[in-house]
């Protein structure tokens, strides 16, 4: 890795209805694997992963939250201070798309200003059972200034691409630092960085 690389660290949160594939997306991105039956997340899970762009390295600190509506009251703890969010829905479920829209609105209202929001229509491998049309979601995303991709955690389609797009869109200003402001920006451990996602970024 180029030692002259600038390293930026961002807090990213995943939101969306239960069982749309939030944890699966993260695990595909971070660990490169997929489980047919991913256990439900209680509270939230934390994982970190890096993305290399041309001359910069972006380290994501990822908060993968519980999706059940019941846990909604705890969500602000996780999206607070996040510079990026992925709002996930299941392309087979209109309800989950409506829920995603609610999350987007909440983030726009209460999230960090300038938060980069990506809308992800997951389970693209099951497109035969699609209920949410690509065009509709695309249009919604454009109207609201969101990144948009349809993804499949199972086949890995568009998963790394989604994180790379977010990394590109995040402002790389000298003041960029993690949400808590507490973590020093440190060199990334090369062993921890996965080949697939690293330096794949343009």
């Amino acid at each position, binding site marked *: 890795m180029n030692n002259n690389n600038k390293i930026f660290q961002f807090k990213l949160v995943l939101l969306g209805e239960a069982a749309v594939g939030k944890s699966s997306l993260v695990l595909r991105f971070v660990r490169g694997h997929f489980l047919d*039956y991913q256990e439900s997340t209680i509270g939230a899970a934390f994982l970190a992963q890096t993305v290399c762009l041309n001359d910069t390295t972006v380290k994501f600190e990822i908060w993968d939250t519980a999706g059940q509506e019941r846990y909604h009251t705890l969500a*602000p703890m996780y999206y607070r201070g996040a510079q990026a969010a992925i709002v996930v829905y299941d392309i087979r479920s209109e309800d989950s798309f409506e829920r995603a829209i609610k999350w987007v609105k909440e983030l726009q209202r209460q999230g960090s200003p300038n938060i980069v929001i990506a809308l992800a229509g997951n389970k693209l491998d099951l497109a035969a059972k699609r209920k949410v049309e690509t065009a509709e979601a695309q249009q919604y995303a454009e109207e609201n200034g969101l990144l948009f991709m349809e993804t499949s955690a199972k086949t890995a389609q568009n998963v790394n691409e989604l994180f790379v797009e977010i990394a590109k869109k995040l402002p790389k200003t000298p003041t960029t630092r993690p949400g808590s402001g507490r973590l020093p920006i440190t060199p990334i451990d090369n062993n921890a960085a996965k080949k697939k996602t690293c330096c794949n970024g343009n």
Partner: protein
Amino acid sequence: MMMNEEVDDESSRPWSYYLDEYPFPQKRMTRIMSIKNKVEYHIKNKIKIPDEYRSKIWYLMEKLDTFTDCEKNKNVFTDCFNTKNEDIENDVQTDAVRTCPSAQYKIKLKNKQSNSKDSLFKVLKAYAIYNEEVQYTQGMNYLCLILLCYFLEEESFWMMDILIKKHGMRHFFRKTKTFLPSYLTIFERELEYQLPELSNQFKKEGIQVYMFIQGWWSTIFVYILPVESVPVIWDYFFWGANGTGVEVLFRLSIALLKMLESTLLTANLTEFFERVKTASAELDTVELIYQAHNVELTATTDSLLREILTKEHQLLGDSTTNGGEPIDDNPFNAFDSQKLTSLILKVNQQILLDNSGDPEYERHYSSGSVGYTKTPHNSGRYATSSKTTNIAPPPKEKVIDYDILYYQQLVGVDHDDEDDKSHQSSSSSYLSSCVIS
């Protein structure tokens, strides 16, 4: 080994004496007390209870037969299961199919259930219909998984009810308002006192209790500990909870963090989660519950936990508040969901009334007090006080809204954040909406 050097007569008899061959059918309470004493002996002497006895030990300690044999409860499980509710069914089904027991769980489950996913669905669905207050909340699936390792479906259903109502797991699961934020605040303070060095490390690295502990508590550690450890933890939980399950969870959490302290003292946020996972996989669980048993919670925490319980009981019109016994006498009406809803409203109103302009409240718990250990006055108070005498309990007859405090700590005090102002304004509107909802 168990037979030899034990002083206590009760502990010296084999499990089978109490579980299978107990000669005094009339002496029901004596039998249960003897079993509890024996469990206590095992905890104190770091002896593992053999797994084959667990079903019966838990069954008897919880007096499960009073639920399953009660005429009133006869068809409850089946009726609830047969009640149609598509939303609940979808929710439960989603999780039932993905609560994937590891291979070891599968071995355990096989003894009792032919198809664990079906059983999970049945019990959770029936329970969601039965208990309108909590319905189905994620976390219950993990509890149910353990129960199904030791009980039949209908028994698991009633054990679920015992965990949720009698032992207070409802505080994490209920629909309208969980006590989770309150407990988080109280626990953070307890952690500062019990493990100050680790607590400081957490602050330095931006690790906050809410980030990891919900999974520990709402699943009674199923979420974090390996298969073989969980039943040992549950031995201690059933033995110690008696209406105050949250206190047991506090003890276990403190003990766990204490045992992991050396590895966590050098961990940053990213390393923290990995290390907790790795280290707790190799943990000596018998040691853990021994440590938990020996944790002395501060008087403040103790009284706050009791305050929450007392308030609930009082407002439910239940004058007796000592542990689980009154609930045992009347297990079926004690936590009527309508009463509970009105209770929650009352508690919240009381909080607002109690705390408006209360100087005591302001002094101890104003929003700035998140860093209370930094002020010489407070740090002295906490550092030198003995565990039972010197810590001033909160004013009597008052309920402090730790939910508010918690959100203040989390949302309002991060001064080095550039976006502070906008956060605070959004957080205050959020606060008002979460107090009474």
